[in-house]
């Protein structure tokens, strides 16, 4: 049985979603670089931090925007990320769909991982991938682990044995800091 306020709450949620529409639908194909990807400490996310700091602007700009995430999805194939991460399922590289993050699961962590590279195989793409595309890729990776809103997450793609699409999965928060290096991980070995 559905509780009585469920529909009402859903209607309210719909209104909020409608207002989020502008942000979600913008096609910022020439977005001014909102923030350089800096080498920095691995942010472990608000769960670990004592005081939640305000999220950096690119979180909203990229994680809340369907176009950026879909561009990230395209680039994920173009740059052959699947070669190691196998559509996010993990192969040579660690899986990206689960909730375990070795180097932090926040957008900035993932962006830093792409730019800096990580030990045990993840190359550095510094100067190889322009900033905007790094953010797009990172936002897409976030959508793979279902950390972005459902209404911006991509649907299924037009390929073989496609996964049902990131938006069909329930939204969940990242649990950062798995701590297991990929070399000793069971998955994908």
């Amino acid at each position: 049985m559905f509780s009585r306020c469920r529909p009402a709450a859903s209607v309210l949620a719909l209104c909020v979603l409608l207002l989020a529409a502008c942000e979600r639908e913008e096609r910022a194909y020439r977005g001014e670089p909102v923030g350089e990807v800096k080498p920095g400490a691995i942010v472990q996310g608000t769960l670990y931090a004592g005081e939640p700091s305000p999220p950096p602007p690119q979180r909203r700009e990229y994680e809340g925007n369907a176009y950026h995430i879909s561009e990230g999805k395209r680039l994920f194939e173009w740059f052959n990320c699947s070669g190691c991460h196998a559509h996010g399922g993990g192969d040579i590289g660690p899986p990206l769909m689960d909730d375990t993050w070795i180097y932090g699961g926040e957008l900035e962590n993932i962006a830093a991982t792409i730019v800096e590279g990580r030990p045990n195989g993840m190359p550095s793409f510094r100067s190889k991938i322009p900033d905007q595309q790094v953010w797009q890729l990172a936002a897409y990776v976030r959508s793979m682990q279902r950390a972005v809103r459902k209404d911006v997450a991509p649907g299924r793609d037009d390929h073989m044995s496609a996964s049902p699409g990131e938006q069909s999965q329930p939204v969940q928060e990242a649990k950062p800091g798995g701590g297991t290096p990929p070399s000793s991980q069971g998955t994908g070995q």
Partner: protein
Amino acid sequence: MRGFGDSRRPQGAWPPHPGPLPGGEREGPLTLTLSPGGRGTWVAALPLPLLTACSGPQSMLDPAGTQAGHIGTMWWILFATCAAVYGIVMLWLLWALARRHRWVEPRGVLPVEEGRDRGLTFWLSVWVGGTVVILCGLVTASYAVDKSLTHLANREELAVEVEGMQWWWRIRYPDDDPSRSIATANEIHLPAGAPVRLKLKAQDVIHSLWIPNLHGKMDLIPGRENELFLVAEREGTYRGQCAEFCGLQHAHMALTVVVESPEDFNAWKEAQLAPAPEPASDEQKRGKAVFLSSACSMCHGIRGTTASASVAPDLTHLASRPTIAAGTLPYNRGNLAAWIADPQRIKPGNHMPLVGVPPPDLQALVAYLDSLK
């Protein structure tokens, strides 16, 4: 700085930095002229008055191939028939309105006279009969022309693979010997008089290849392979364009078709087979290094170098092509630099990102790319 000075608009200082370039997204492409003569003459055609607009680099009324010729004939048949029918209807309408009518008092009603209506019924059956005869004629003509389009299909001499991408054309000349196949982009060279089969594919969305001077259009559909069979007869440079709406930059998805003598065609083909020339000057060498170490090589390939990506146009002989960005700009160094500096202003939404190459590197990069004849 070849081709730089002949821009119609003031170009601003070279290198185009700092600050936004003139032109750009809000003002359209930077420059649309090209070096006089030679490549890409179609672009140089001046805006033509209405009556002479029928001939042109992208006009079905100016056929340069067998198929387009047949379709042109079909058009004139249709035009003549329909114009005659239209004339008859309009004359009759005029007569019906302007003739002396039966008198009727205000708000009165005319009685239907059996005899007059019987007369009209006779003419109605004549009218229907005439329509049927004309339509049968047109259906037959259309069918005959349609058959003639594939008349020489079994005498194929050349196969070209055309793949539509968002928003450019990948062109391949396959060969049994893989080392002799050619990959290029946004230009098709065809030997005049040779029956050619274009194999049409698409990876992303539906596109449609339309080179009106040579043939009608045919869609490129993901998951399918279509064919267009054509014989180009008249040497010249023609323009083709995507005709199926394919997203943000559907408007800037053109290609150049060069119909040339078989000798010229073979010469072009041999030239295309060669790997990219080694950079000669220091600047070019630096440009090559920039290319290989920057974002360019993530998408573009240049044969003979370590750049082997293939999601964007192959640049091995970039400088031999008449246009850049799928017909958006005529090829010249100035346009190339402007394009690399900020592709999203010239062709907003296309897949080439704003890389942000520093100005000195940009100049070297352009120098290198311009050497890829």
